[in-house]
């Protein structure tokens, strides 16, 4: 076994995994609060990549050269606009369906996913888009042929996703708003009786999910530089796998599941086969569903009448 390859794959896996974790937050929170799989979430992530590139190009057009400032501005604008996407999708496609049949929100979500994909394809073209490398440089460990390197972008990804996770944990665990979120998650009717504006909290959860997806979109685009209108599909399935692996409904579970899935996938493609890495991730999903449906940190599901 080549230890430097293993080390490299672990670093790549952790970076990939923290991205999955960020997107998985959107799935897990929405599922926790209204018990629905938001199929459009992967495409919200895709839209955020486009919004990021557009914002960056606009900033570039106005001649702002400081990379730090440009990135900060891009991140802020992308988060705001993607959050708006999350809010509008919930408002238009899911809120009218409260109390409808069980399948209705799922099908509506598929519709939104198609809409987003096709709309971006029509308006921005089907070709692969890209941005130039903004952050260069790597840190190297080891010497000669056998080395392990970590790019500065990867460091940024790890730090940023940790920061997001910490911020979100504080928001959910330590603020009044977070307490309302948890109340709605536990019992929506009772929370409403006690004066929580449940509609607003559900909207907020969608916005948080979309904002996290936006952070992921910005970071991934910085790292890989290219994207197209179809990236949301596979990434969405994998992030959902991460959410299930960690225990759907659990916030730390999403991050943990993301990291584990990223590591597994990265090791699989490094040591076994690259063509079938998507097949492998999916096999992980099925395996988890069969042997431990409640995930690593989730609570077993209790069905109430």
């Amino acid at each position: 076994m080549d230890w430097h390859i293993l080390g490299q794959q672990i670093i790549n896996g952790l970076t990939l995994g923290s991205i999955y974790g960020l997107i998985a937050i959107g799935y897990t929170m929405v599922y926790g609060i209204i018990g629905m799989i938001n199929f459009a979430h992967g495409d919200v992530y895709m839209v955020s990549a486009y919004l990021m590139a557009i914002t960056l190009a606009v900033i570039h057009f106005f001649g702002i050269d400081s990379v730090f400032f440009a990135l900060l501005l891009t991140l802020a604008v992308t988060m705001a606009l993607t959050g708006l996407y999350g809010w509008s999708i919930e408002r238009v496609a899911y809120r009218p369906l409260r109390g409808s049949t069980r399948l209705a929100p799922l099908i509506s979500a598929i519709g939104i996913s198609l809409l987003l994909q096709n709309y971006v394809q029509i308006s921005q073209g089907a070709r692969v888009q890209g941005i130039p490398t903004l952050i260069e440089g790597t840190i190297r460990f080891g010497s000669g042929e056998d080395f392990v390197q970590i790019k500065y972008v990867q460091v940024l990804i790890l730090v940023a996703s940790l920061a997001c996770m910490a911020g979100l944990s504080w928001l959910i665990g330590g603020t009044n708003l977070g307490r309302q979120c948890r109340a709605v998650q536990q019992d929506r009717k009772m929370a409403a009786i006690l004066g929580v504006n449940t509609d607003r909290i559900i909207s907020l959860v969608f916005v948080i999910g979309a904002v996290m997806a936006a952070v992921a979109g910005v970071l991934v685009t910085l790292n890989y530089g290219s994207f197209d209108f179809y990236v949301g599909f596979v990434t969405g399935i994998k992030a959902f796998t991460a959410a299930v692996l960690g225990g759907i409904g659990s916030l730390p579970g999403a991050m943990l599941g993301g990291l584990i899935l990223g590591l597994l996938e990265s090791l699989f493609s490094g040591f076994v086969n690259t063509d079938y890495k998507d097949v492998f991730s999916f096999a992980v999903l099925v395996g988890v569903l069969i042997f431990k449906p409640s995930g690593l940190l989730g609570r077993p599901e209790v069905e109430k009448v």
Partner: protein
Amino acid sequence: MRAKVHEPIDFGHALRDALVTGVLTLLVLGPVTNLVLDGYAITAELLRGPLIVNGIGLALVVALGRFVVAVGVQTPAGRDLLTRFGQKGAHGVTVETAADNDWHRVLRPLVIGGALSLLLLVLSRFGLMDVQRAAALVLIVLFVVLGQGLGSLRRRGQSSPWRILVPLLFVAGLVLPLLFNAWGLFPKTWIGNLILALIYVLLGLGLNIVVGLAGLLDLGFVAFYAVGAYFLALGAQYFGIGFWTALLCAPILAACCGAVLGFPVLRMHGDYLAIVTLGFGEIIRLILNNWLEVTGGPNGAPAPGPSLFGLEFGRVARGEGNTPFHEFFGLEYSADYKFLFIYLVLFVVVAAMIRFITRLRAMPMGRAWEALREDEIACRSLGINHVVVKLTAFMMGAMTGGIAGVFFATYQGFVNPTSFNFFESVLILAIVVLGGMGSTLGVIIAALVLTLLPEVLRDFADYRVLLFGALMVLMMIWRPRGLIRPKRPAFAPKGA
């Protein structure tokens, strides 16, 4: 009597609403539509056409619409309209009444269908319509009416007009294409279109069992379709099986795949099934694409055509000692024969399938599907094994998909992975959703419309997916049970 109070219309409020909606629309759509990425640069297309990809224009339209609605609902007429359309349709199951099988009721679609066919023929006679298109439409109308007949059950001891009409329509459906073809009204392109339409009817019926009747969302239905198609193609390549063998074996294989996939997942919360099937559909496609040695990868694999008692439809016989169909009957060679034959076999299979599903719905199994869809907990407490019942629905759907796949492969003469992408699954789901989940007739009509309409409206091909997405959302909000409300076959105890 209550006096009607006319409150003054609050224009300011309406204006504010319109402004907020407009600004939000602009913020959401504007960046993506009006700023087009071009490498690291951007081109601002502020006056972009068509309107659908112009965020600024759309924002104006939406704001105006919001304003009109906000003012409209404050007028007495608007309020009336709101109360009338605000009432949601009743949920649950509608049961057929005796009147549904009346001569009067039954004859209505027949008369409408007949009149429509006559109108089409007259129009084409006077050159107002393409003759071939009219002929194809006549066949479609005939099929829809037949579908209605096959989809209705007779009560015990009750006479129903369908008893005479269905065999008549069935024979007409077999004879008319031959006649039309002989008269030159039914060329190869239209046979092909109708074959594809019927394949989608079959797929729609299969998915309708899973989504419409059992209430399980299957997003990878295309996988079973692929299993059927590749079974014929690869089976012919490696084991030398033919069309008929595949037609019998592919459904079994597809059903087994459905069981293997469904069993672990169906035990859990229903929503997991959606994402697992979605993944499964992609996996099947990825394997077909990447396993070059066996499947031929993106280049695909050839599939054999059908045969009639050993007679092949090619210009020259492939197998040793075989005679081509046209030589045996002393006819001149024409590629139409093969497609006509596929069409006729498919017609029989689809008709049988409609009847099969209709009967199934009246059986305990079918009733259990729908009961489980309505209330799982109640069903389980009544002793229904929910896993087994769901599994039967899932396998039955997979089986139908497998049959459709065999027909697709033999019609195309060739299969490759691009025919089985996620969009196909979505198209089939759109058929079921638009047709009314659970309604056989609705699925037939939706399949015919959604597959044949793009042939007619080629200009809108780019916007097809967009339209499907929007329709799915709108249908779920407006009519979650579909356009045609499904009716439950009635059950009358003996002696009642």
